């Protein structure tokens, strides 16, 4: 074998060990009661989008991540079909699918995409399987203004449910005050107004499996997040009721390297305000221990190897050119791991490596060993870095964006400050100490977390005394 053939060989072995072996077992044993923790498969269907979200990597680096020459939705969907056939042929069943973009844009294309997925589901024989299968679909709600899309997305979720398959619509919406700042539409005539938010609410009411919302807390919109969270609480309470609204909101802080000192002040102020609301709603326990809102759970939650996202549990495919990429945000040319190769009948016949090294490395990486993380006082309570953001900022996926570090530090400090302020700190520490006694990885990890939390608390007390 020459060097390239050997490269193909070890990469195939890696894919087999890290993904395919489990997918095969999953395919064969899915109807058993055994619990699996498997990797999923992400279809990155295209780069183009009808929004120009300020913080979006695809908006900012599209030509590098999803070059125009391969950003053709018809080709991309044809490739999705080839990949689904390849899964069936090899008897591979990933844990779940994720649809990512860009946007397919036209309704016909969405129909084609979901027809392909439904055909796959039918062939797998899901009605006879015990466990549900999930397809995550971040929903760009701008489409819902069009009645045809509105009806179609409701229809398609119902259709998949017949086969025990849930399409999880996760609604991409930053909120009434943040949307105009951070999620401008390419169509200048589009307006974020009450009518628009009413349409979304109507959709959520009609769709059988209730969608969640995943707004972005970003440098671009942090200044308005106090008003925004008030709006979100009211909006979701009206939509899902006083009891259930809290389970539908999932806040994500954007880890781009543009957090200014003023943004950090605004973040602190937002967290203060958020805590006031949590106290009013009696939700502090939920946000600390039950992942509610996602935003505050990092003090107690367990992220073993530091990546707060699903990069280490997902095989990402950029379907425009059938490239295997480390993740949608690391699809830069020098990190494209491999390409599926098709024959003239669109059948996948091989996987040919390109630059497989980062894909392998990311799967084996522990971000807590990176600098400056390794010497960082919050390494175990941090949400971790984003390899793509690191690369965009520093040119190195393993070198953390400095302002993201500052943001994470400001965030955890603000959370702990509020725990002290509202007398939740001691209760929290007691509970964490209890968890730390567990004789497992989580117990050991919690001990490390405790030390960091206590140190930050001491720092806050010292600062207060000095004042």
């Amino acid at each position: 074998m020459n060097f390239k053939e050997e490269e193909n060989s070890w990469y195939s072995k890696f894919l087999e060990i890290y993904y395919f072996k489990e997918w095969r077992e999953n395919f064969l044993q899915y109807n058993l009661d055994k619990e699996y923790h498997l990797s999923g498969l992400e279809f990155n269907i295209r780069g183009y989008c009808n929004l120009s979200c300020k913080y979006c990597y695809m908006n900012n680096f599209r030509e590098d991540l999803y070059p125009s020459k391969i950003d053709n939705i018809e080709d991309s969907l044809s490739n999705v079909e080839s990949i689904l056939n390849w899964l069936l042929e090899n008897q591979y069943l990933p844990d779940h699918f994720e649809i990512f973009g860009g946007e397919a844009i036209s309704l016909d294309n969405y129909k084609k995409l979901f027809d392909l997925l439904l055909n796959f589901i039918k062939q797998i024989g899901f009605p006879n399987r015990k466990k549900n299968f999930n397809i995550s679909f971040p929903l760009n709600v701008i489409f819902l203004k069009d009645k045809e899309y509105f009806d179609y997305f409701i229809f398609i979720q119902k259709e998949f449910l017949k086969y025990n398959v849930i399409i999880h619509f996760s609604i991409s919406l930053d909120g009434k005050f943040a949307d105009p700042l951070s999620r401008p539409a390419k169509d200048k005539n589009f307006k974020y107004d009450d009518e628009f938010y009413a349409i979304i609410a109507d959709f959520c009411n009609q769709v059988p499996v209730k969608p969640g919302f995943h707004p972005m807390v970003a440098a671009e919109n942090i200044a308005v997040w106090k008003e925004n969270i008030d709006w979100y609480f009211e909006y979701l309470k009206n939509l899902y009721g006083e009891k259930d609204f809290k389970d539908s909101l999932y806040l994500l802080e954007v880890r781009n390297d543009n957090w200014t000192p003023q943004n950090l002040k605004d973040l602190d102020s937002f967290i203060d305000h958020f805590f006031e609301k949590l106290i009013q709603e009696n939700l502090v326990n939920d946000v600390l221990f039950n992942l509610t809102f996602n935003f505050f759970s990092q003090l107690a939650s367990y992220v073993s190897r530091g990546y707060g996202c699903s990069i280490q549990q997902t095989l990402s495919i950029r379907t425009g050119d059938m490239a295997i990429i480390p993740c949608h945000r690391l699809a830069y040319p020098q990190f494209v791991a491999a390409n599926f190769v098709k024959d003239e009948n669109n059948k996948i016949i091989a996987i040919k490596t390109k630059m497989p090294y980062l894909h392998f490395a990311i799967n084996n990486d522990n971000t807590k060993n990176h600098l400056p993380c390794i010497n960082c006082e919050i390494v175990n309570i941090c949400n971790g870095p984003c390899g793509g953001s690191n690369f965009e900022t520093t040119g190195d996926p393993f070198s953390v964006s400095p302002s993201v570090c500052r943001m994470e530090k400001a965030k955890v400090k603000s959370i702990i400050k509020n725990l002290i302020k509202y007398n939740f700190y001691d209760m929290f520490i007691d509970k964490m100490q209890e968890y730390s006694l567990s004789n497992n990885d989580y117990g050991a990890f919690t001990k490390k977390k405790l030390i960091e939390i206590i140190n930050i608390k001491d720092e806050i007390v010292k600062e207060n005394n000095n004042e």
Partner: protein
Amino acid sequence: MKKISAISLNSSATCNLQCEYCFVPHFKETTKLNNQLRKDILDKTIFDKIINALPKEEITHLGFWGGEPTLNLDAFCQVIDDDFLNCYFPSLDTIFFSSNFSNDYIVKNIELFINKISSLSKKINIEIQASIDGPAFIHNKNRKGSDVNQVIKNFSYIKNKYKNENVNFIVKSTIDNENIKLINNNEELFQSMLAFDNYLYTETGIHYRPTITIPGEHTKEDGIEYAKFTKKALDIGRPYLTELYSLVYSLFTRITKSRHVIYHQTLMSSYAYCSAGNSSVGIDLDGTLNFCQGTFMLNGAEELRIINTQQKEDKITQNIYKKSFAKTEEDKIRLFYVFNNLKSQLTTGKNLTKSFLKILAIDNQLSPVYRQSENMLDILTALVFASKGCQSANLLTTGSWYLTSGASAKLFGNGALENVMSYMIKEEKRNKNEF
């Protein structure tokens, strides 16, 4: 910003040879670039760029790289004098350059340069590396346009002429897998290599210590051949003929010396193969700051942007490495932040390398011992990551400073390292008995 005391300067964009393994491209464009460079040397623009890039007071070592650096030494001679040194390199201690010593023009330029430096008020050391790849069947084949006998004659002439000056001489020999295969399969050629070692030592006082090309695209088969070669060299009691022996010896020495802090997480700088990014950097033709000379020319003209053989078919261009260079002050801060991380992250680099070598072992691309023995895997990992690890080559072959392509693992991990370890253990026992 960390203290950078050594710089590698791209001092020649062209070369009179066409070596098979050389990473420097040969295009018409390079002649044009070299003409511009000579102009920049003569009007001192290039030196303004250097002191603009780095604090001049901290630079003690200046290295000339190319191309063939000596082709422009005459131009340097026209500008170097005491005032020049005070102005641009007030702390300069040593000048280093490599040469192919292949013709009279080069020899004259070297003489001119040494004479010029010797005439300065301040005593400056000069280190000269001669590229001599081996006996004719290796050297003349690899270094097209050069004859080994002429090179040794020229080198000996300069070495003898300046033996009483502050000039040190070293020999750098590069061989490739084809050379190794040839030697393994032909006893006469092996004997001729030994004879060459004797000849070189007689003529220059320096032994023949061939090193393997990096990054290379070494395969398992190359590794098996290298193991055979290593065994032959060890069996006849000339371990220096195999680069691996000195790499392992040096690695163990470094580990032994730093054993009291072995668990410290930020030891990379003491394990690193070279000082690039730590105390030295490269400065390219246009003044851009590089990790080292290994990435020179990637930032040049469009024609030069096609890099390393693995990527040629895809025409991956310099554009994707745009953050691997620094021109502006902001770029420099970013790049030094990355270099600092890179040189301090023993754990990340080691862990990623080890995981990777495990996969190679599972895929039977390494000897079975690396599946069976964690200790051997650790040693191979350290060797690949820290001893023969070239981070610049990593960037070009894997897209990341941290990640190895596994080429040197396959070269050393298919018998050669086992052979060297056995030899060292026997050597250790022999020494103990003698003691």
